[in-house]
């Protein structure tokens, strides 16, 4: 196969960006750069490990705790209903009954829940700790104690803790990250490779990773399923055709996934293993969105690699790529 850089027609890494744009590493002529929008500010963890505000329509490169390479942070819309979130004090939060919420703390401290839900969350660092609950009434008492240094507390709907949203005397919404890319269309076959981690972790609902499409509509959706499998749903011009599901589970971290299509057979590779194949007819995409999160509360991902090839690479090559 040679190397990925030579053979891929499109490579996107956590690298160059500006407002409304994510630059592709390849091609270099700008034809496959991603457009990006987010109509609100948002926070990211910088290379010093400090959460900092990023302006509207600017993509977020998020760094791991302890240093290392950053990843793109793409998240769905979320609202923090915990007031004065970075100067947290005990308060009653009005919630909807019988609804799933995630409560999180980033920094050092303890959050104790009572009323609409019970539980204890201990924060030890800026990565944070969280607890997902289903409410049983409309008043959630959030008691904070043992705070030290900079601390963020968040109460949001859904089953995942998203990045901190700073509130004062009102609830605050961070709007969805909306990256859209273009690919050179091949009508003989293609390969997609990505290295991605869902922030929801494992065991919680469908987590959509990307959507591919062309002018005739959706041609596929890639997701991590409720049962922690890796799936690719095949569409032909927005009509569902078939699904290919991994045998092995995803891991609670970055997963290397490749999909190949040679015109008649789809093959799915996960972390170095050929997980399965199906014979099906699908459409050939020329656009993609990371993640596919139109209304998906779990569509939050860290992504540090995306490659697209205009051919179906061999099984051996795909296994090597995902190992």
């Amino acid at each position, binding site marked *: 196969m040679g190397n990925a850089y030579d053979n891929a027609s499109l490579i996107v890494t956590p690298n160059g960006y500006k407002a409304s744009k994510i630059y592709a590493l390849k091609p270099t002529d700008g034809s496959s750069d991603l457009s990006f929008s987010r109509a609100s500010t948002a926070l990211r963890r910088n290379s010093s490990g400090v959460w900092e505000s990023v302006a509207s329509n600017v993509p977020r490169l998020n760094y791991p705790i302890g240093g290392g390479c950053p990843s793109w942070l793409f998240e769905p819309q979320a609202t923090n209903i915990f007031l004065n979130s970075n100067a947290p004090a005990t308060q009653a939060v009005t919630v909807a009954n019988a609804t799933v919420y995630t409560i999180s703390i980033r920094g050092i401290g303890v959050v104790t829940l009572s009323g609409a839900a019970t539980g204890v969350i201990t924060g030890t660092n800026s990565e944070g700790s969280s607890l997902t609950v289903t409410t049983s009434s409309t008043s959630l008492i959030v008691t904070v104690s043992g705070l030290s240094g900079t601390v963020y507390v968040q109460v949001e709907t859904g089953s995942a803790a998203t990045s901190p*949203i700073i509130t004062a005397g009102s*609830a*605050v919404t961070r709007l969805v990250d909306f990256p859209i890319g273009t690919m050179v269309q091949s009508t003989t076959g293609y390969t997609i490779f990505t290295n991605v981690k869902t922030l929801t972790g494992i065991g919680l609902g469908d987590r959509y990773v990307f959507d591919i499409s062309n002018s005739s509509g959706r041609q596929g959706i890639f997701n991590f399923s409720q049962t922690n499998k890796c799936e690719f749903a095949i569409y032909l011009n927005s009509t569902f055709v078939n699904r290919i599901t991994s045998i092995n589970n995803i891991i609670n971290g970055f997963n290397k996934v490749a999909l190949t299509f040679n015109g008649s057979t789809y093959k799915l590779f996960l972390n170095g293993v050929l997980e399965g194949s199906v014979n099906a007819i699908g459409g050939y995409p020329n656009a993609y969105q990371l993640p596919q999160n139109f209304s998906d509360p779990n569509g939050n991902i860290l992504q540090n690699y995306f490659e697209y090839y205009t051919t179906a690479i061999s099984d051996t090559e795909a296994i090597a790529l995902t190992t």
Partner: protein
Amino acid sequence: MIYKKYTFTKESDFDKKIKGLKNYIAIPVTCIKTPAIIVDGKVVTEAVIDTNYNVDILWDNDEPSEFIPYQVYPKGIGQHIVAGWEDFYIVNKGKNK
């Protein structure tokens, strides 16, 4: 984009007005009329929620005229704001109120 706040009597009233429109972001807002009363860490009286349908909208272009009668101007930024729009909302609220 412009940022406005609205109150409708029912969600279905909002749905009728917004149907067919594009290029907007609407965020429903739960407004609290009376906070919960907590005594010794226990809820003795639940919060009273506003039964109206409250919604914040970011319009890509001008606000449709049929939405103007439903505009509201709560104190300050109200009980909800989109991150980064605080100053814009306050300034334009002053101009348009």
